[in-house]
C-alpha cells in the first residue's frame, strides 16, 4: 500500500461517490441500506405486471444547478449522481482548471424514454410532427454532454455504451487516465433508467425472471433455482483522483484503485458457459495483480442461468485454494440489474464494505448451486474488516471488466459515514465461517 507515487504509475484514489439507487440516494443512505440488506425490488408501479427496482420519491430539481426544460429520466439520475459525487468529494469545480478534468459515463441503453417519446410522434402523427427539442435527448452521449455544459467540464469526454459492463469500462479508463497522468481527476461511472421500452425489450428476450407464473419471480444470484434477472435503475459516479492532488486539497479518501482490466470471451454464450470462465479469471488476475490478497469479491451475478455459472467457474479458477473462504456477494437482489450502472454502483458498495467492515449479503440466496464451492454470503451481511476488494462486471454477450480497490489503512470508518447509528448490528453469514481480518488470498500472479 505504501508504494511510491511514481510518475508513470501514479496512485489513484477515490475521493467521493454519488450513488443513486432504489435502496438509497447519496453515500450515507446507500451504505446504510447495503449494510442492512434492504431490497429495492418491488412491484412495478403504474399497474404493469412484474417486479423492478425503481427509484421512488426522486425529484431531480434538488440536484440541478440550472433549470431544465427537458431531461430524460436517465439523464436525471446521472445529474443527481454527479451532484452528490461532487458534494461528497468536497469539490469546488469553479476554482479548478475544468479543462483538465475528465468525464466518462457508461449506459447500456441510454435515453430510451426519450426515444419512445420521439418515435411515438413519428408513428402517430408523421415525420413532420416529431419534436426537434426531444431528438437530441435520444443520443446516448447527451447525458454526459449536458453534464459537461452544466458544470463547465470541457476536458476529456467519453460516453460508453458497452452493455452491462459500461460503467466498469468507464471506471477502468478513468483509472488509466489518472494513473498515467493524463488527467489529475476524472468523474466516472454510469447510469440507467427504467422505461416501458426497456421493460418491453427485456420481456421479449426472455432473460428476465419470469412474470408469467412459470416460476418464482425474483433475483436469486448463485442460487440453484435462479431463473433470470429483475431490472433496476440507478446511477453512480465516482471521483477518481491522483493521490497527491487529493492530498493537496485535503480531500477525503474512501479507497485506492489498485487495478482495472477488460476482456471478453466470444464463445461465452454459444457453449453455455462450460469451463469458459478462463477469460474472466484472466481479467480478475490482471486487475488484482497489485494486491497482496483479495478479501472480498463483489460479483456481477444477477440470477442469470448461464452468466452466474460462468462467473462462479471464473471465481473458482481465480481464487484457487481460497475459493471456499474468500467472501463473495452480489448486491443485485438489492439494487436490481441496473445494466450499465451496475459496475459503478457495485464499486461504490465495495468501497462501503472496505470502509465499514460490513460485507453485504446476497439476498434471496437459499440453495447455492451444488459443487461450486464458493463462499457466497447469505442471510445477513458479514462483519469483517477487509482491505482489498475486487468488483466484477459481466455482460451476457461475453464482455467483462474488473476493478480492484484497496483500503488506505488510516482512512477506515469514520462514524460520520453512518449517521443512522453505525453499521449493521447483527452480522452473521450462513455458509461462511467468520474469519479474522486480513486473511485472504496470497497473490500468486
Amino acid at each position, binding site marked *: 500500500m505504501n508504494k511510491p507515487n511514481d510518475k508513470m504509475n501514479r496512485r489513484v484514489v477515490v475521493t467521493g461517490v454519488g450513488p443513486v439507487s432504489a435502496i438509497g440516494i447519496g453515500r450515507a443512505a446507500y451504505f446504510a441500506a447495503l449494510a442492512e440488506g434492504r431490497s429495492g425490488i418491488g412491484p412495478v408501479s403504474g399497474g404493469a405486471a412484474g417486479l423492478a427496482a425503481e427509484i421512488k420519491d426522486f425529484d431531480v430539481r434538488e440536484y440541478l444547478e440550472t433549470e431544465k426544460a427537458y431531461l430524460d429520466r436517465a439523464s436525471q439520475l446521472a445529474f443527481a449522481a454527479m451532484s452528490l459525487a461532487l458534494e461528497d468529494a468536497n469539490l469546488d469545480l469553479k476554482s479548478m482548471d475544468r*479543462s483538465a478534468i475528465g*468525464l466518462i459515463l457508461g449506459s*447500456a*441503453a441510454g435515453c430510451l424514454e426519450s*426515444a*419512445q417519446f*420521439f*418515435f*411515438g410522434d413519428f*408513428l402517430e402523427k*408523421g*415525420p*413532420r410532427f*416529431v*419534436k*426537434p427539442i426531444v*431528438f*437530441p435527448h435520444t*443520443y*446516448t*452521449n*447527451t447525458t*454526459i*454532454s449536458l453534464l*459537461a*455544459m452544466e*458544470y463547465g467540464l*470541457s*476536458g476529456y*469526454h*467519453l*460516453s*460508453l*455504451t*458497452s*452493455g452491462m459492463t459500461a460503467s466498469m*469500462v468507464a471506471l477502468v479508463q478513468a483509472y*488509466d*487516465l489518472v494513473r*498515467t497522468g493524463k488527467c489529475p481527476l476524472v468523474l466516472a461511472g454510469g447510469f440507467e433508467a427504467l422505461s*416501458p*421500452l426497456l421493460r*418491453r*425489450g*427485456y420481456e*421479449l*428476450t426472455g432473460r428476465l425472471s419470469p412474470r408469467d407464473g412459470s416460476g418464482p419471480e425474483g433475483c436469486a444470484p448463485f442460487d440453484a433455482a435462479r431463473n433470470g434477472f429483475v431490472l433496476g435503475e440507478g446511477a453512480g459516479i465516482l471521483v477518481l483522483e491522483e493521490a497527491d492532488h487529493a492530498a493537496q486539497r485535503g480531500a477525503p479518501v474512501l479507497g485506492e484503485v489498485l487495478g482495472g*482490466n*477488460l*476482456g*471478453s470471451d*466470444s*464463445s461465452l454464450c*454459444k457453449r453455455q458457459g462450460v469451463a469458459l470462465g478462463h*477469460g474472466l479469471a*484472466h481479467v480478475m488476475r490482471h486487475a488484482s495483480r497489485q494486491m497482496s490478497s483479495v478479501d472480498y469479491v463483489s460479483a456481477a451475478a444477477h440470477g442469470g442461468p448461464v452468466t452466474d455459472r460462468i462467473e462462479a467457474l471464473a471465481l473458482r479458477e481465480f481464487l484457487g485454494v481460497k475459493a471456499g473462504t474468500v467472501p463473495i456477494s452480489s448486491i443485485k437482489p438489492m439494487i436490481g440489474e441496473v445494466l450499465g450502472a451496475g459496475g459503478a454502483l457495485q464499486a461504490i458498495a465495495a468501497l462501503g464494505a472496505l470502509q465499514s467492515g460490513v460485507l453485504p449479503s446476497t439476498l434471496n440466496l437459499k440453495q447455492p448451486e451444488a459443487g461450486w464451492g464458493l463462499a457466497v454470503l447469505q442471510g445477513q451481511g458479514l462483519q469483517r474488516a477487509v482491505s482489498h476488494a475486487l468488483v466484477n462486471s459481466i*455482460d451476457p*454477450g*461475453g*464482455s467483462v471488466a474488473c476493478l480492484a480497490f484497496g483500503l488506505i489503512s488510516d482512512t477506515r470508518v469514520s462514524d460520520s459515514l453512518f449517521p443512522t447509528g453505525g453499521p449493521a448490528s447483527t452480522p452473521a453469514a450462513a455458509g461462511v465461517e467468520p474469519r479474522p481480518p486480513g486473511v485472504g488470498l496470497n497473490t500468486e500472479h
Partner: protein
Amino acid sequence: MTRVVVTGLGAVSSLGANVPQIWAALCRGESGIRDLTRFDVKDFAYTRGGEIVHFQMPPALARSGETVDLATQFMLTAAAEALHDSGRGGRDTSDVETGVVLSTNFGGIISGENVMTDLQGRNPAHASDFTEFLFQSCADRVAERWQLDGPRVMLSLSCASGTAAIGYALDLIRFGHAKSVLAGGYDALSRFAWSGLSALRTMTKDAVRPFDKNRAGTIFSEGAGALLLETEDSARARGARIYAEVAGAGLNNNAFHITAPAKEGAGSAAVMRAALADAGLRPEAVDHINAHGTGTKPNDVTETQAIKAVFGAHAYQMPITSIKGGAGHLMGAAGSIEAIASILSIRDGVIPPTMNFRDTDPECDLPLVANEKKTMPVNCVLSNSAGIGGCNAAVIFRKVEAVAG
C-alpha cells in the same frame, strides 16, 4: 511510449463496397447522394441521402437462423475487409490480445423501431429486435466472427464517434490492455434518425458545399469504417504492411450548447491542441487537415476559426479538405471513413477534393482542395470531428518510414 500503427482498412458506404472503390470515388469527386428508397419519404422535408442500395453482406459473414440489424451488417462487412487487409483475416482461434472498439450514434435503431412500434400497440416485435437494438450486440457479433477476445467496448459520441473510437483504441493499446484493436464506426439511415435530423434543420436540399459561401447544410449518409490498430512491434514482427502511425488523439466537449458550436470554435481548437500534445508534435508538423466540414453555416466557420487559432500562419500553408461534399455525413462512421481517407492521403500523396465548391466565403479562407484532387507528399494528417452535444475529437496520423532489412 508504445507506438501504434494502422495495418488494415475496411469500409462500406454509398460511394462503394470497399476501401479501394470508396477511395477512387472520393479522389474522382463522385457523389454518393441519391433519392432515398429505404423508407417512404413522401412526408419528409428532405428526400436525398447517402443510402447504400442493393447492399448484400458477404455470405461468409452470415450465420444461419440469425437476424442481424442492417447497421451491424455494415460494420461486419467493414471489419471483414480491415482484418483481411491486415493479413490476419483467416484466424480462427481465440485471440485475447485483440480488442474491438466500435462507435455509433444510433446503433441498431432499425431493429429498435420495431420494439417502439410494438410498444405503441402496433406490430408485435421479436426478441431479436431488442437484442439487435442494444449497442453492445454489434461488438459481440464482430468479436464472435473472428474470436477477438480482448477488450470489447462500444462508445457513442454523436458525430465525433468514429474518431473517438480510434482515440480510445489507441489508449487501450498504450495502457497495455491489448496489442491490437479493431476500431470502427457505423450507422444506418432509418426513419428515426432521418425524421430527427430533418427536424433539426441542419440538412439541405441543395448539395453539400463544405466551406462554400452559399453552403446551406449537410446531408446524412450511412455506412461503416474499420481500422486495425496494433503496436508497431507486433506489426513488424509479423511483417505486416504499415499504413501509418496513429500519433495521437484528443477527445473533449465544448461545455457550451447542445447543438450550436462554441464561439470561435474554442472546443474544437482545444481538441486539436490536445491531439498535438498527445502526439508530441508541433502544429507545423501537420501538413494537411481532413476537416469535419459538414457544410452547415456554423460548423464550417467555427472549424476554420479553430484551425487558425491552433495553427496560426501555418494554417494558410496547409491544404484542408472535407470529403462530405461527395460522401455526405456518415454520422457514427464519418470519423472512421475520414481517418481512412487521411491515411490513404499519406500512402498515395493525394488529397481528395472538397466537392461542390463554387464561391469563397471570406470567413472560410483556408487553402481548400476544391473540386479537384491535389497531389502532394503528405506526411502528417490531422482528422477533425465534432458532434451534437458539443463533443469534439481529433486524431493525427503520421507516415512511418520503412525499416531497412
